[in-house]
């Protein structure tokens, strides 16, 4: 193993620190629900979920609870909900310059910006969404620059991002829509230029990757060293100068990160499909307002769709948005996920439960809507070994409701993360 690989591994190990969520406050707790949607098999009537040391220890209908164990009851119990795409923690509640960290406008191409360096776990909107049962959020740099930065998966608790973190370096956020367009002679000024710039960067990353691999091959074969064992600084005999931007894109080329591309117009969706086919990378199609006009093409591409919030406003690139798109995509067999998205004004954050509810009532249906914000999202984000369903060994993340969670008039009565009750009442 060459030195280069060693340094890359160092980079990744720093980056891959999985959230060692503090369970110091976790108490053993039991939850009984008249209906428990485990999302791992049929719902359980009058089910009990026992959480010990922050993990689910037992699920059943006849569970003997130790004396003194706290029991919380609810009409409906679900896994903690997952928001498949947000900018929570980067787009702070006040919407003032000092709490907005979703963009740096110095360059349209900054895939090297990490979300762990920007996420504020103490923003009040984190508390807000979790009071409705959202326990896991895929968040990071926002749509609106060609490549604005990276994303992470966090829990909606923790004093530090390290405590909140579930998965780092999840995706690079890219945008192929009018919102990434620049005026005044700056690039990208057109859609053609946007795609050209993305292709140029990915090709550069391919070349960078080839250089790394040539160097590693030489190191492995031992012929990259001079007589004293030092690496020669000529082509293939020394690692390329480190380039954080290209390193990030090599992660995309290698599938360690997805390329999350926000595109709304049908023509932009077609560009995303074309880009994916050219580079063979993992692409998540994001927002996709006109996906209902491109169902066959999207299905053929195999791309998953993290659909715009159902209540997205119909103007600009979103003017043809439909509340029925989630149902149409799911009905056609396209994997579809729900998000709160990015809001520049009011409401500063959407609540993915509410967005899924409107989709449920407009063709997606209860079962698929609930799957989209639990186990399906967990699988897409590659965190299903920890969250997304109620199964023994998984994190003790639960959402409790006094009725159908999608009903406007139901309340979230408690939210539990890693066995800690983080919200109670009637939200």
């Amino acid at each position, binding site marked *: 193993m060459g030195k280069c690989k060693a340094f890359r591994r160092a980079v990744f190990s720093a980056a891959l620190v999985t959230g060692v969520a503090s369970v110091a406050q976790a108490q053993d707790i039991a939850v009984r629900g008249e209906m428990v949607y485990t999302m791992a098999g049929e719902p359980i009537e009058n089910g009990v979920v026992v959480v010990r040391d922050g993990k689910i220890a037992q699920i059943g209908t006849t569970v003997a609870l130790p004396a003194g164990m706290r029991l919380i009851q609810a009409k409906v119990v679900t896994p903690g909900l997952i928001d498949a795409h947000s900018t929570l923690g980067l787009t702070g509640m006040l919407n003032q310059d000092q709490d907005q960290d979703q963009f740096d406008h110095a360059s349209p191409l900054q895939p090297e910006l990490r979300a762990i360096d920007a996420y504020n776990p103490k923003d*009040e*909107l984190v508390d807000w969404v979790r009071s409705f049962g959202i326990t896991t959020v895929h968040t990071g740099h926002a749509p609106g620059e060609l490549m604005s930065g990276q994303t992470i998966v966090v829990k909606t608790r923790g004093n530090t991002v390290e405590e909140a973190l579930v998965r780092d370096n999840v995706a690079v956020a890219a945008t192929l829509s009018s919102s990434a367009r620049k005026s005044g002679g700056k690039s990208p000024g057109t859609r053609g230029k946007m795609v050209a710039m993305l292709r140029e960067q990915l090709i550069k990353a391919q070349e960078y990757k080839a250089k790394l691999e040539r160097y590693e091959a030489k190191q492995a074969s031992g012929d990259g060293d001079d007589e004293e064992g030092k690496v020669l600084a000529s082509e293939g005999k020394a690692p390329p100068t480190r380039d954080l931007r290209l390193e990030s894109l090599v992660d995309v080329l290698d599938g360690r990160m997805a390329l999350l591309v926000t595109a709304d117009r049908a023509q932009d969706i077609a560009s995303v499909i074309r880009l994916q086919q050219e580079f063979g990378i993992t692409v998540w199609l994001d927002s996709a307002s006109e996906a209902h006009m491109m169902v066959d093409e999207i299905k053929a591409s195999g791309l998953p769709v993290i659909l715009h919030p159902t209540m997205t406003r119909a103007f600009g690139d979103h003017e*043809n948005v439909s509340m029925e798109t989630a149902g149409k995509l799911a009905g056609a067999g396209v994997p579809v996920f729900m998000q709160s998205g990015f809001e520049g004004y009011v*409401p500063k954050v959407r609540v993915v439960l509410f967005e899924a509810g409107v989709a449920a009532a407009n063709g997606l249906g209860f079962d698929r809507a609930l799957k989209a914000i639990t186990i399906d999202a967990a699988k897409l984000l590659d965190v299903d070994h920890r969250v997304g369903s109620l199964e023994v060994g998984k994190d003790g993340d639960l959402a409790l409701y006094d009725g159908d969670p999608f009903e*406007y008039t139901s309340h979230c009565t408690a939210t539990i993360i890693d066995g800690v009750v983080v919200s109670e009442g009637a939200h």
Partner: protein
Amino acid sequence: MRQGMKLVVLALGVAASAALALGANAKAFVGAKLIPIDGPEIDRGVLVIEDGKISAVGAEGDVSIPAGAERIDVAGKVIMPGLVDTHSHVAGGASAADGSGPIQPGVRIYDSINPRASGFKRAVAGGLTTLNVMPGSGHLCSGQTVYMKLRLAETPHTIDDIMYLNADGSPMGGLKMANGTNPQGDPPFPGTRGKAAYLVREQYIKAQEYAAAVKRATNADGTMDASKMPARDLDMEALVEVMEHKRVVHHHTHRADDIMTVLRLSKEFGFRVVLHHVSEGNRVADEIAAAGVPVSAIIVDSPGGKLEARNLLLATPGIMERAGCNVALHSDDWITDCRLFLRMAAMAHRAGMTRAGALRSLTLAGAEILDMQDRIGSLAVGKDADFAILDGDPLSAYTHVQETWCEGVRVFDRSNEQDHLYAVGGAGAGHDQEPYLCCYDHDNGVQHLNAEAN
């Protein structure tokens, strides 16, 4: 004038039906649950409409259906009054005042609305039949609002086709004012709250003097002495209308101290005012109730987005209701989508508003705010036949508006493919006018309508 012709036709219709007395123009909606708003809900009711008005309403068996009436079976459905949205920007960029100054009461949004804008089609898809369409909050006074009646059975040719008009043919509406951070800016816009109130007082004092000059020019017999009349001033005329209670002020205001400033100015100059948004209305609910000033509130799905909305609570409408305020809700479309106006009432109920109060906040409370409680807002005999037919409870997420009727004519039918498009969205459904660009804020790369803003 189409409107004039319609009135003539309507008058003839009334005469004809009175002459025949057979209810030939009547329609009876039979079997639905009725939510009259001004009385208890009726499980199986009958609603009879005739010549654009409600002619009977009550429980099945208690209401005699005219012999000639068309019977429409609506068993299993729910009928409630057409929704009244007291604060909307749905026409997609309609505006009044421009960037030249902070106080422009003479400018009318009436002159900038495209009656063909798809937003109106979306509004009826949400069960709305009456809108107060307003200019934005980027000014201390951004101009005159319009009260619109969504007669969309045919494509409107001019805005008058979908307007509430006064007896003299002039458009009905209020006056939009705002305080807090939205109207702040570089001079001549105010830089502080104190300056904002000063600028407003200065103009109202000028208007008092203008009114006094007009009075001095008025002879004892009511004729005018042209030599004494001040030069006509459209801005002053509008403010005088406000002070003479011919026009209501619709005042954007969020923070508790800003709300109190509105009440203070309203008292000083004697204008009638409706408090809009009132994000911190929970903090001064008793003061609002004591002032007897109605409220048009909004619920959005999270607090923040701007400093003055940081304390926004879902519970605020309910708190104000309990304090005794007359609380309406509004969509502020595009801030929230007016097709989901029922949802807002449901969210208010979720957070503590009574069910009756929540349903009233979409209908009769709004009618009162627009001074039209004798004409709309409830299912009552003599009122306009404006109503929505739903397939379930109005506060359920799974309920959809099936039909909307305005003055006895169906203006939305979800089973119609084109209407369905406006109800859920899709290709062409969102094509409104382009927004006016003066008050766009491109910060953070996002276009948001400061001028139209909540």
